[in-house]
C-alpha cells in the first residue's frame, strides 16, 4: 500500500512538473482536441434536440407516446350519442369530432374555400363544391355566393381537455375550460393558422356550421399552436350541442371521429363493444412515435457521429503529434529518470496520464462551452422554438464528450507512452 502510494505520489510530481514545464505544448494539444470533443458533444446534443423537435411536432399531430387512438367510421345515427355518453365525464378519454365551419359575414363564400391555409400554400382549391348524403358535385354558377369576409375552418369539438394527449402550445389567451357550465355562445380557441386569417380579415363574428339549427356567435378566447397549417378552431362539444343536433355533431359520414384514451382505460373495451353492437369496427392503435422515429434518428445520429469522429480523429492526431514531439524532446529526461531507478512502467504511465488529463480537461472545457451555448440558444431562440423551452443539456452528450476525451487521451498518449518506456538508458552515455 505504502509502495503503491509512493509510486502514485512520484508519478503525480513528475507529471505535474512535466505539464508545468510545457504549458504551451499542453495548451496546443488541448486546442487540437477541443474542436474534436466539441464536435462530438455538439452532434450528440444536436441529435437529441433534433429528436426532441421531431417528436414535439409528431406529438401535436399524433398525440403523446402511449396514447391509444380510436378512429371511428360508420353510418349508424346512434354513433354520436354512444360515443359522447361513453366518454362523458371521464378523465381518461376524450372524443373529438371535426366539421366544417365558416366564420364571418353571412351569405358569402369564405376567402379560403375548403378550409385551405390562408397563405395560399395549398394552391387553388378549384370550383366550389357542395356535398350532401348523395355525394359531392360542383355548385351551379347561379348558386355560387360571392367571396366575402369569411374564413372557413375545421371545427373540432372536444368532450374534454385533449391537451393531456396532444400538448398544444398556448400562444395567447386561454384554452377551453371544461370545468365550467357550458356557455350558450360557444367559446372558440383558434390555431395559429386560423388566427392569422382573423388578423388579416376583420370579419364580423358569426359562425355557420353545416347542420346547425342557426348561426351562432362565437367567442374567441385564445390561440394555440397545434402544428397544423390548416385553419382550425377548437370548441367544447357540449357548447356546440346547443346549436347542432347530436346526430350531426358526431356524424362519421361528414366528419372525422376520434377518441383519444389513456392506455389501459376500460373505455377502450366498453366503447369497442358498444360500437360493434352497432356494426361498427373501430380502428385502434397506440401512438409510438419515438420508436417509429428511432431507426431514422439512429441513422442520422450515426452519420453525424461519423463526421464528429473524423474531427475527433484530427484532434487525436494533434495530441499524438504533440505527445510524440514531447517524448522526443524528453528522451534524455526519461533515460535519466530510468537511470536513477524510475520504473519504465511508471514513466509510460506518467506520459499516458498527462495526455489523459489533457483529454479530460479538454472534454470538460468542451462540455462547458456546449452547455453555455445551449443556454444561450434556449434564451435566444426559445421564444420562437417552443420545444427548446426548458430544455436541459442532454446528459448523453456530456457522457459522449467525456468518452471522446478519454479515447483521445488513450489513443494520443499510448504511442508516446510506449516510446517513453522504450528509451534505452544508455542514451545518457552516448549523448
Amino acid at each position, binding site marked *: 500500500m505504502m509502495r503503491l502510494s*509512493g509510486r502514485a505520489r512520484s508519478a503525480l510530481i513528475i507529471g505535474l512538473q512535466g505539464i508545468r514545464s510545457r504549458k504551451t505544448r499542453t495548451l496546443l494539444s488541448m486546442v487540437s482536441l477541443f474542436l474534436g470533443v466539441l464536435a462530438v458533444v455538439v452532434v450528440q446534443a444536436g441529435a437529441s434536440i433534433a429528436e426532441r423537435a421531431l417528436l414535439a411536432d409528431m406529438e401535436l399531430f399524433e398525440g403523446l407516446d402511449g396514447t391509444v387512438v380510436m378512429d371511428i367510421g360508420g353510418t349508424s345515427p346512434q354513433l354520436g350519442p354512444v360515443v359522447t355518453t361513453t366518454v362523458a365525464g371521464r378523465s381518461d378519454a376524450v372524443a373529438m369530432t371535426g366539421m366544417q365551419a365558416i366564420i364571418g359575414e353571412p351569405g358569402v363564400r369564405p376567402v379560403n374555400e375548403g378550409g385551405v391555409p390562408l397563405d395560399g400554400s395549398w394552391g387553388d382549391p378549384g370550383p366550389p363544391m357542395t356535398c350532401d348524403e348523395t355525394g359531392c358535385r360542383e355548385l351551379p354558377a347561379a348558386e355560387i355566393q360571392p367571396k366575402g369576409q369569411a374564413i372557413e375552418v375545421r371545427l373540432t369539438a372536444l368532450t374534454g381537455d385533449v391537451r393531456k394527449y396532444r400538448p398544444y402550445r398556448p400562444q395567447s389567451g386561454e384554452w377551453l375550460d371544461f370545468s365550467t357550465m357550458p356557455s350558450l355562445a360557444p367559446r372558440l380557441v383558434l390555431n395559429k393558422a386560423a388566427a392569422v386569417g382573423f388578423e388579416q380579415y376583420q370579419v364580423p363574428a358569426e359562425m355557420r356550421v353545416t347542420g346547425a339549427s342557426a348561426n351562432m356567435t362565437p367567442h374567441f378566447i385564445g390561440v394555440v399552436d397545434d402544428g397544423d397549417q390548416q385553419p382550425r378552431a377548437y370548441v367544447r362539444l357540449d357548447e356546440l350541442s346547443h346549436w347542432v343536433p347530436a346526430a350531426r355533431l358526431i356524424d362519421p359520414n361528414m366528419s372525422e371521429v376520434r377518441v383519444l384514451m389513456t392506455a389501459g382505460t376500460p373505455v377502450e373495451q366498453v366503447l369497442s363493444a358498444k360500437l360493434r353492437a352497432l356494426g361498427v369496427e373501430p380502428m385502434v392503435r397506440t401512438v409510438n412515435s419515438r420508436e417509429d422515429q428511432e431507426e431514422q434518428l439512429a441513422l442520422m445520429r450515426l452519420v453525424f457521429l461519423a463526421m464528429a469522429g473524423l474531427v475527433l480523429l484530427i484532434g487525436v492526431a494533434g495530441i499524438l503529434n504533440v505527445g510524440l514531439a514531447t517524448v522526443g524532446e524528453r528522451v534524455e529526461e526519461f533515460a535519466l529518470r530510468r537511470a536513477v531507478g524510475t*520504473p519504465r512502467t511508471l514513466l509510460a504511465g506518467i506520459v499516458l496520464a498527462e495526455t489523459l488529463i489533457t483529454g479530460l480537461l479538454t472534454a470538460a472545457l468542451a462540455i462547458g462551452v456546449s452547455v453555455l451555448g445551449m443556454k444561450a440558444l434556449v434564451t435566444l431562440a426559445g421564444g420562437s422554438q417552443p420545444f427548446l423551452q426548458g430544455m436541459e443539456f442532454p446528459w448523453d452528450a456530456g457522457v459522449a464528450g467525456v468518452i471522446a476525451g478519454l479515447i483521445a487521451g488513450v489513443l494520443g498518449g499510448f504511442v508516446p507512452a510506449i516510446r517513453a518506456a522504450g528509451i534505452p538508458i544508455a542514451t545518457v552515455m552516448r549523448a
Partner: protein
Amino acid sequence: MTALIQLTGITKVLKGQEQPRTILDGVSLDVHPGESLAIVGRSGSGKSTLLSVLGLFDRPDQGTYLLSGTDISRLPERRAAKLRSSHFGFVFQRFFLLKHLTAAQNVAMALVNGQGWLPRRQRRARVMQALDEVGIAHLAKNRPARMSGGEQQRVAIARALVREPRILLADEPTGALDTETGTLVIDALQSVTARGCALILVTHDRDHAARMGRLLHLDAGVLTEQLVTS
C-alpha cells in the same frame, strides 16, 4: 570478505549489424567497498559499455555478475530499476540536469522515482545534505541555466549521492570541464570512498586516473589491471 561486485567472463556482443561485434570480451573484475578504480582506454574500447553493464542499464550476453554475492546477470528490468535506485549512483560527461527544475529539485529527482517515498521535509533534508557534501548548498534554488559547468556537475554528483549508493559510476565526468574545475569534481567524487562507497571512474585524464586506488585498461573489450606502484 565477499566482493561488492564480482564480474566473471562478462561478454557483450553488439548485434543487429552485418556481423556481430564483441564490445566486451570476457571481462572479470572484483570491486570492494570503499575502493576507487579508474578505467582508461581508447575511444570506442568499450568503457561506457562496461559501465552500462555494471550499472544495470544493460545485461551481459555471457558471464556472471554478482552483487554482494547475489547473481544479477539476468535480472528482470523491474528489479534492475530498484537496484539502480538503491545501490548505484551515476555521473555522466554531460550533466543532464532538467533545465526547468532548480538544483534542489534536480537532486530530489533521484528520490522521486517511484521507489519508496520520503515525506517532503525528509526529502529536503537529504537533498540539502547532498548539496552541502559537494559544496554548493547555497545554489539550491538556482536553475541550471544560471550555474557554471562545474557547479552543474556537482549538482549531478549530489543527485548521484542523495540515496547514499554503494557504488558510484562516473563516465568521463570532467570531460566538459577545465582542469581546475575538473580537479574539484574529482575531489567531490573521491570523498565518497571514505564512507565505504566504491567509485568507478572512466576518464581520459592521466592525472585523475592516477588519483584512484586501482588503474584498469580496457583495450578492444579486454580489461587488464595495471599494478599501481605506491
